[in-house]
Each structure stands twice: as structure tokens, then as C-alpha cells.
């Protein structure tokens, strides 16, 4: 499988693979090797990837609702990561405020440690009710060698609350994935286990790797609770600092996003012996399986069956309705990582067929899971760039493209129905009930009358016409 747009970028062929009719993998370079992933982006290829800082500040640390979110760096990194990712909580301090040490030229030349310390103290003075200060490092402050760890330690003594320093400078890894790792590792090292509440924790779990996008947690928390389980910590969505501190008390970690949060589950297993299970909380089959697996750990199988039966009775007629309307439609999923494979089954439950799957920062294990689930002829792309997306949307012409906000307008300009899988058009999309929202949005996207209108009515662009005054009115140019 070769893309025309990659004629001058031969290396990109290693990141594209097809599943053959025999079930083998045929990579773009003609070999049977597996798709290459998690490697440095080709410079100038118009990647959609972000930086390590984005993965840490935006994904893992950002949802913590009562921490001051302080970026140590110049203004832009903080401005752009402020308030756009809908990781909701029952309060909105974390969404409403962004803090930045605002490095200027002098700070870059002479070091920014003093300013960072002052920033932490001032931020805490403005918002004394915050439970901690999360400090995120950026490229330039890392490069000039600011010792943020040391500043954080000093500040912690001065303000008497945790100051958590994330070494998540943007250039550290090849994508935002490294930022997830740094986020996990730092929160684990600095917060988890720092409080020891008394009580019986034998029937408790943590939900690990769900960021409560548009209140996803609401669609499944009550199901776990209906089993008789208590959720201690949500890592990280609708979560407070105090809950992160006691995360180690839970009896079981239920891991949803297995790219961005398995790290902390592994570390907890090693240090505290906390077992974990991997689950998918999207779609009927997977959501039911997640409840069954969790229940099995606690010996609550009967309860799980009752909860599932009750939910399915409510859900099935609605899903049947959409299934009929969506039967046979083809999908291109492009997500950051695991959602790409989480959703293949859900779409199948809606009668749809996933023909192309791409991820921004997936690793080999993500692609293995994708490969397992797609049909022969299915295509995988790692870290796709703008021309590749355009070519696939044009030539493989899926009935639906599920991706993020940036890619949305590319799809629209090409007349391809689109659902926003990153931040959701409406949401929530998780759990049983969220699946109905998901199906409704897909249905709305695919069956909107605009696509037929475009087909009938769209015209080619008028001949290029760059007159200096916009649109000619019939008078001659002055020249």
C-alpha cells in the first residue's frame, strides 16, 4: 500500500500497512514486517502530533480539579493548553484558570528559577484554597537548565502544600505519549501514598485512564457502584489532589486507556501489589465484559449479570434503531491512541465496518490490537500527516471519519461526514448510555442532507482570480 503523496517521503511507507486476505500484514515498503510506530516524525511532513508537554499538561495533569496548573515557560505553551479540552469535573477551577511563569528574554538568559519560585508563591496567594501546585516544564526552561525540582521542593516548604514538578518539556519524546508517561510517573512518585486513611477498602476500585471527557464517567460509574463497589480515585478525571494521595488504598485498578495510564497501574502493582485489569468502557460487548471482569475479581458475578441485563433491556431497542440506519457504512478512525481500537467493536455493533485506522502516538501494542480487529483489506497508518489524510479521505472515501477538531475541517472541505472523537460533538460517548449518544451523532453526521446537497450542487472553484481589490466590478485596473 503506497500513497501518492508520499512519493518523496519513502520512509512513510514503514508506517502504513494493510491486512491481507490471508490475514497477514503487508507494509507499505512491500515487506511483511509489522507497522513502525512511536518513532520520530519526518520533519516537515505536516504531522498532527503534539508535544510531551501537551500529553502531560493537557491530558494527565490538567484534569486535576483543585490543583493550580502552572506552566514554567513562555506564554504560548500555557495559553494554548488553557481550557479547551473538556475534561470536566464537578468544579471548574482547572478549566477556568491557567498560570504561567511567563519567561521573558532576561529570564531565558539568566535563568528562570527565581521567577518560578515567585510565581508559585503568588499563585498560591491568589488561590489559597487550591490543594497543590502542578508545575509543568517546557522546552526553553529545560534547555537553559532551570532546576525546577529544587524550586518545587523549596516552594513546597514555603507554602505547605504539594508542589509537583513535571519534567515534561515538549521535545522530550516523539509525541504527546511521553508526556503521559511523565505525568503518571510524577504523580505516582509525588502524591500517591502520601496520605493513609483508615477504613475498609476491600471493595474499592480506581478508574485509571479515563479523563472524563464531556462527563464520560457519568455513563459508567454508577454501573460499578451498582455492583457494590466504591470508586476511590479517577486517574484523572473529576479528581482532586486528596484522592490521588490515597489512590494506593484501592483493591483493584480498572485500566481504561492502556496507552496513557498503564504506567501508573504497573507502578502501583510493583510497589503496593495492587492488581489491575484492562477494560474497554465503550460499546456493549466491551462494557459488559468490563463489568464482568471487575465483578469476577470481587466475586460479584451475579450482581454484574443483573446490572448488565437491566441496562441492555433499556439500550438494545435504541441500538437496533441506529443499527438499521447505519448498517454497512464504512469508517476511518483516527485517534490519539487506544480509542482507535476501542471503537472498532462498538462500530461493528452498530453494523459499521472500520476500513482504515490511524493513531497519532500509538505504540506497537496498540497496532497489534487494531490489526487483530480489522478485516482483510483494512488499513493502518501510524502518525498520519495532512496530505495522507486527504488522500485516504479522497480515495478510500469512508462513509464516516472519526477524528479530532483539527482534522474536522479537512474532512468537511472534502465532503466527508465527521464525528469528533477527541472532544465529542455532544457526548458523553462512553458506557451503555453514552453509546446511544455516539450512535445518534454518527447517524446525524452520515444522514445530514448537506452531503446530498453538496453532491448535487457543489461547483468547482472559480478560476484563480487574485485582483487586488477582491472582486472585480467592471472597472479597469489602475495599472
Amino acid at each position, binding site marked *: 500500500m503506497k500513497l501518492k503523496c508520499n512519493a518523496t517521503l519513502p520512509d512513510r511507507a514503514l508506517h502504513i500497512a494493510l491486512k491481507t486476505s490471508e490475514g497477514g500484514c503487508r507494509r507499505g515498503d512491500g515487506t511483511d514486517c509489522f507497522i513502525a510506530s512511536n518513532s520520530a516524525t519526518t520533519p516537515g511532513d505536516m504531522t498532527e502530533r503534539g508535544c510531551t508537554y501537551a500529553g502531560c499538561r493537557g491530558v494527565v495533569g490538567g484534569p486535576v480539579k483543585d490543583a493550580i496548573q502552572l506552566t514554567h515557560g513562555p506564554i504560548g505553551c500555557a495559553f494554548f493548553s488553557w*481550557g*479547551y479540552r473538556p475534561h470536566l469535573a464537578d468544579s471548574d477551577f482547572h478549566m477556568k484558570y491557567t498560570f504561567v511563569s511567563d519567561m521573558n528574554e532576561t529570564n*531565558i538568559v539568566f535563568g528562570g528559577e527565581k521567577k518560578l519560585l515567585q510565581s508559585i508563591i503568588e*499563585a498560591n496567594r491568589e488561590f489559597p484554597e487550591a490543594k497543590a501546585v502542578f508545575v509543568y516544564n517546557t522546552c526553553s526552561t529545560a534547555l537553559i537548565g532551570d532546576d525546577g525540582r529544587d524550586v518545587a521542593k523549596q516552594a513546597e516548604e514555603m507554602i505547605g502544600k504539594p508542589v509537583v514538578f513535571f519534567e515534561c518539556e515538549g521535545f522530550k519524546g516523539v509525541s504527546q505519549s511521553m508526556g503521559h508517561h511523565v505525568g503518571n510517573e510524577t504523580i505516582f512518585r509525588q502524591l500517591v501514598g502520601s496520605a493513609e486513611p483508615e477504613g475498609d477498602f476491600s471493595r474499592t476500585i480506581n478508574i485509571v485512564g479515563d479523563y472524563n471527557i464531556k462527563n464520560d464517567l457519568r455513563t459508567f460509574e454508577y454501573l460499578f457502584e451498582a455492583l457494590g463497589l466504591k470508586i476511590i480515585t479517577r486517574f484523572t478525571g473529576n479528581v482532586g489532589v486528596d484522592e490521588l494521595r490515597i489512590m494506593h488504598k484501592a483493591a483493584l485498578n480498572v485500566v481504561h486507556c492502556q496507552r496513557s495510564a498503564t504506567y501508573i497501574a504497573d507502578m502501583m502493582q510493583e510497589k503496593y501489589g495492587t492488581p489491575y485489569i484492562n477494560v474497554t468502557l465503550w460499546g456493549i460487548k466491551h462494557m459488559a465484559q468490563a463489568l464482568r471482569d471487575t465483578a469476577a475479581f470481587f466475586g460479584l458475578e451475579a450482581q454484574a449479570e443483573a446490572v448488565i441485563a437491566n441496562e441492555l433491556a433499556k439500550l438494545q431497542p435504541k441500538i437496533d434503531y441506529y443499527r438499521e440506519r447505519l448498517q454497512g457504512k464504512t469508517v476511518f478512525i483516527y485517534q490519539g491512541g487506544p480509542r482507535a481500537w476501542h471503537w472498532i467493536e462498538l462500530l461493528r455493533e452498530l453494523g459499521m465496518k472500520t476500513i482504515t485506522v490511524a493513531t497519532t502516538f500509538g505504540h506497537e501494542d496498540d497496532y497489534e490490537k487494531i490489526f487483530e480487529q480489522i478485516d482483510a483489506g483494512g488499513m493502518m497508518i501510524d502518525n498520519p500527516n495532512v496530505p495522507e489524510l486527504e488522500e485516504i479521505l479522497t480515495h478510500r472515501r469512508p462513509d464516516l471519519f472519526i477524528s479530532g477538531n483539527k482534522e474536522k475541517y479537512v474532512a468537511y472541505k472534502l465532503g466527508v461526514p465527521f464525528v469528533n472523537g477527541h472532544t465529542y460533538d455532544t457526548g458523553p460517548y462512553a458506557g451503555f448510555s453514552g453509546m446511544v449518544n455516539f450512535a445518534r451523532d454518527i447517524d446525524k453526521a452520515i444522514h445530514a442532507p448537506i452531503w446530498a446537497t453538496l453532491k448535487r450542487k457543489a461547483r468547482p472553484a472559480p478560476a484563480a482570480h*487574485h485582483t487586488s481589490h477582491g472582486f472585480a466590478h467592471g472597472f479597469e485596473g489602475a495599472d
Partner: protein
Amino acid sequence: MSCVTTQDRAVAINPTRSCAPIGAMLANYGIHGAITINHGSQGCATYPRHQMARHFREPVEVASTSLTEKTTVYGGKNNLLSALKNIWERFNPTMIMVCSTCLSETIGDDIPGIIDEFKDNNPEITIPILSVKTPSYIGNHATGFDNFLKEIANNLPDRRKKKGETNGKINIIPGWVNPGDIRELKHIVREMALHAIWLTDYSETLDGGYYEPRPHFARGGTTIEELQSSSKSIATIALQRHIGGDAAHIYERRHNVPAHILPMPIGLENTDAFVDTLTEITDHTVPEILQVERARLLDALVDTHMFTSGLRVALFGDPDILEGLTSLVVEMGMTPAYILTASESKPWAEHMVEVTQELGVESEIIIKSDLHELHKRIKAKPVDLLIGHSKGKFIADAEKIPLVRVGFPVEDRFGYHRRSIVGYNGAISLVDEITNIVFERRATGVVSNTLLELGVEGPSTMPLLIPNGNGNGKH
């Protein structure tokens, strides 16, 4: 008299400025077929792309040199060289603009030197490749735009201008505005029967149509030929002092094209200044249609003054849009109680003291400041209205004050990039919008073309009766 204050805090909380590369990227979008390479790590390209997509709701494509830890140790030269090659081969652009980042500037990469090396190695590539310095620890998003324009003025215009040679056009630098604003300015220029070279024109590239098939490059944008010819223009008009003012002076110095630096044409006075300048530098007169639009703006100001006079407003954003808005809100009888910017420019602050003095209002002009500071001011002494970009919504929500959205970014409403706030028409729509917001949010109801305000002076026990459903009955 107005006073100038600043924020007494090192930490920035809810800044009202972002970083330099996005300004250069935006400006470069106004050149047909030009592509941006952001020399840094991926975040510095992807974040602004995302931000622009949220505002313009268009595909926004910017390349990154994707620096990682390894490459930063040895410098980013090889990454930039291969990015240049990849972009050239894959896209066949009309121009490439390389902007730096805090990272590549801190490493100390010599971008112009690397570009020269690239050109030496590839003599067949003759398109302009521009280097724009955009470290964000110096200045902000506006600086990036301004630096881009300076590079254009220095590098693209044809230097072989014969004495007296002219293209009969006017260089117009709209600055950081919206596609709708540029279209409104074009309308004015067109109605004056003049021709302009727009520096730069993203009126269509960032507000494009749906075409089948999709054109290789977005339609619109100033062409390289126009930029080359810009040294032969009869004048340069910069409509924002801080974005394009310096470039206009470069045209004057290097190419003998007279510079006219004007306030952003928001409101009657400022639009008049623009139109008058057009008549002064050419022998064209103000056509009937602009006279009618101007009269219509006056009429709108008359019709609305009873509802807007006396309101206290807070303005925040960039210096130039603030200067323009100040003029318009005073024309509407409102008082700009706070005028807040992230800019550190003292000369601007002093200029604003004069402007407000001339307009006869007293304002607190707050420079080098953030939105948290504005929030504190408003908590201490409230305003009736906020005017600025979307990030003001947190104050608006908390204090239940309406926010009139202008500037960048407006990411929580649809289609604001298509609107215009400049020219007579832009002012009319702002007057309408502000008045309607007052109608909707401040008053209890609109009855028979008048406002129903339920506060009564002095104690009263008489229940207030609201006529048939036009009010909402809240006491």
C-alpha cells in the same frame, strides 16, 4: 484624567496574549500558496494550528521540524534542511516561511544561514524562503505578525524600481483582523475605485468556500507578484500601529513609498481617518455608497444612544483593537472604565491617556496585565459590559456580565471570523450587537421599543406589573 497602571505580579494568570509564531503563521496564510515551517518541537506548531482551527473553523496546515531531545543536542539544522526539502517536493509552494520558536532560538540555530545553505544546495528552487524570528519570550502574538511583515517589506518588494515608476496601487496592512474585516476594507477600497495590495490577505484562505474538487491551495491570498510589485505602490497604509507600522516605514525608507500609520478603523472617527487618507493620497472622492453607509452609522448611533449612554465597559485585548474600540464605545456614549492589555508599551499607554482625554472620558489603562487582574478590578468596581475575545467568558460567567466578542480568539461562538467590526458597516453591526446584548441581558425586558428596568429609586412596596409576557417577570 485617565491613569496608567500595571499588574504587580510575576505569575501570569489567564493571559490575554499568546505567542509569536501564531502571528507569523496567520500572516503567512494571507499569501497565496505559501507554507509555514515552524522550527521547533511539535507542540509549538500543533497548538497554534489547533487554536486557529477553533477560531476560523477551517483546515489550518503548518509544518513542524519536529525537534526532539536528540536533535536539540546537536542543533536543529538537519531537521530544518529536510523539512525544507520535504515541503518543497511535496507541496510545490509559492513561498516558504520559516518561523522560529523559543526552543530553536534558545538552541541558537542560525535559520537564515541554514536557508542559505539549502538554497545553495538546491539552485533550482527559486521561490522566496523567508526567515521570521518569533521567540515568544520577546513580545507576543502581535510581535510575530509584525516581524513577518518587516521581513516581507525587507525581502520581497522589487528593488529595481525606476524613478517615478508606479503600479498605481496602495499597500494596505490590515493587521490582526478577521477575514470579514478584510472584506469590509476591500469593499471600501473598491467603492473608492482604488486598487490595493493587501499585506496580507487571509480573507478567503481562512474563510473559504466548499468547492468540488478541493483546490490544491486555498483560494485567495496576496500573490508573490503583488508582493514584488509593492515597492511601486503609491503609498502604504498601516491600519494597526503595532502590526505593520514598522513595515510601512521600511517601505518608505527603502522604496520611497510614503507611510500612513492610522488607528484601527473601528467607529466613525477612525473609519473617517482611513477614508480621508484614501482621498488625500489619490484624487478619488468619497463615493455615494460610502456616504450613505456613514450616514447610516450616525443614524444607528442616534437610535441607540438612550440604551448605551452611561454604561461602563471593560475593554481587553491588543493595543490597536483597544484604541479603535475606545473610540467607538465613546461615540456610543459609554465609558471605557478599564482598558487592559498584555502589551508592555508605555508609549501606547501614554497615547491612550491622550486619546481618552480628547474623548472626554476617564479610564484606567492597564498594561502588562492579564485577565485575572481585570477580574479583580471588576469585582472591586463592576462594569456593565465586557468587550474582548472569548477568554473573557470566565469573567463574564462569574460576574454575570455580558461579553461582546471581538478579536482573537473567538472559539466559543460560530462565525465571528466572518463578521466585520471595521469600516462604517462594521461599526453599525457592533452598535447593533452591543445594544441587543444590553436588551437581552441587562434589562428585564423590552416593551414597545423601550427598556423595562425593574429597579425603582426609593422604597416601594407596589408590586411591579409586567405587561403581557414581554418581560420575564423576575423581580
